[in-house]
């Protein structure tokens, strides 16, 4: 596919790439937001925003992480909107026992936002440690720390390798 050497993505190139990763975007949004309809809305919004901005993407090799970043922003906006209506649902990191009693999906949803982002991208969307760092705009070391903590809370024994 095109977009070589700094040339902007065409709409056709964008739509092709977006088709390839929309399922993983949906998976990310679903774990973030907890409902099919909200996840679909979030993916719709992210894909639309990406389409409007794709001409600015000068480094197409970052496409996946770039579009994931857009999706994360959309999801966080929705979560902030929800927080104004209902009590904060997140459990503190110190409440390890509280996570044990929850189904895994719910436990992920109740993780602090920073830990949830890392665990979703690393172990459900399939991004590497470097790609996760790129998507979230944080150092790789921070990703490593957060994923370790999240795996501890969730009692998941998954590899922490890149």
């Amino acid at each position, binding site marked *: 596919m095109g977009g070589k050497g700094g040339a902007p993505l065409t*709409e056709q190139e964008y*739509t092709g790439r*977006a*088709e390839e990763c*929309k*399922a993983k975007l*949906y*998976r990310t949004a*679903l*774990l973030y937001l907890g409902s*099919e309809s909200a996840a*679909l*809305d979030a*993916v*719709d919004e992210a*894909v*639309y*925003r*990406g*389409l*409007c*901005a794709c*001409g*600015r*993407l*000068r*480094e197409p090799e*970052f496409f996946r992480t*770039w579009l994931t*970043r*857009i999706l994360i*922003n959309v999801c*966080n*906006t929705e979560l*902030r*909107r929800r927080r*104004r209506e209902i009590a904060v649902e997140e459990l503190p990191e110190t409440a390890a026992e509280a996570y044990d009693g929850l*189904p*895994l*999906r719910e436990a992920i949803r109740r993780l602090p936002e920073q830990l949830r982002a890392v665990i979703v991208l690393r*172990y*459900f969307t399939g991004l590497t440690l470097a790609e996760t760092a*790129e998507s979230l*705009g944080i150092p790789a070391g921070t990703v490593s720390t957060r994923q370790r903590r999240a795996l501890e809370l*969730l*009692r*998941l*024994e*998954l590899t922490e390798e890149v």
Partner: protein
Amino acid sequence: MERMEEYKALLAELEETPPALEHTVQRARARRRRRRWGRGLGIPAGSAAAVFAAFVLLVNLSTPFALACGRVPVLRDLAAAVSFSPSLSAAVEHDYVQYVGQSQTANGFTMTLEYLFPDQGQLLFFATVTGPREVESVMVSPTFTDGEGKALEGYSITCLSFAPGELSNAFALIPNRAEEPVLPGVLQVECQVDARIPFQDSGADQTADAVFTFRFPLDGTLLEQRERVEVDRWVDLDGNRIRIDALEIYPTHARLTLTQDPDNPEQLQSIRFYLEDERGRRYESGSSGTGILSLGSSYWCESPFFSEPQSLTLHVTQAVWLEKGREYVTIDLDSGRALSPLPEGISVSVHRTETGQVGLAFIAPEPPGSTEEHMVAYQVATMEYKTPQGEVRSVDGVSHTHAGRLWYGTEDETALPEDCFVEEYVLENYPWNTVDWGLHFTRRTAFDTPAAFPVK
């Protein structure tokens, strides 16, 4: 079920996607085609020729836009820097950004003026400042002139302190007449950088500063983006009549203008609200770009500019009122008691010193949502007071604290009730026994069910 089994089962479950996902990209393409490309240029939408003409027009006649097309780096850093703001995030996603990209170094500081959101209602400047390692935070105070050095008139500025090295919303230029701003084609801004360095061994704060001047063209085409929705509807809000005049929609914020019936028994001091469109999307009150809640009779909120809603409903969640005739409360400074009614839930405490200094504290219940990690307060009184002779004076400052005790170490030391905050004022050389202190409100209403009114 063991956690690993749960994980595998969840992975398998997530492999299934809903049928609606199939047409996600097609929906995005259709939505983009419906977007009114020529809005800011007056070119009719829906015409391929018009789209091409608009692009050619922008590139050939607008140097900043051409520069932007040619050299704007991937906006990753800016997207991260504005992730707190739905309006700014939408603006970035829709390329509503002018790249400045100028950097200067002096006196050990480097300032890079990176991006500008050319919203004619609030020009937002994003910059990075680096300096000596001991600098804890920086604040940039701008002064604007045109390309010929003539001072710009008719504007206000806001500026925030921010951490060194972080791309931040450093300052904003807010034209007084947003509907017809007088902005030059070339803007020059002198930036005074004040750095905060925490206590040194000497025990005194030290500050260092540097001054930079940046000069760049303003993209006039991006500036001319504003939509005005005329409403002109009188409504009853919480026992008072208010006219919703209009909704002005700018790319990074929106403004709801209201008029109050002069016969109302109370003056509306502030409202909290949100707009909701037909898809249930909300636009909360307050501009996340500048933090401005209101300006005169306009109440600011997040912008639906890029969402292109077909309808909008105003939902008022809170109203703050000041009863006419109760603008001041009389306080006996000897007994520390209010001699006229205070707003519900508010109490007062006084501490006088032998030198004539008076500490006056209003104690108020914390609002919902205030936590130890994120303490929130609201305005109780004003900085204005009247002497017993009726002379109007004002104090220079006010402080808000959530401390556990008032007047610590004095004979007036008082334990504060839990879940309260204190709004404290200090009077110097005040010899009288009473004071009439200005109140900001007499009544606050939080609506269990928001008061809803159609706007668009």
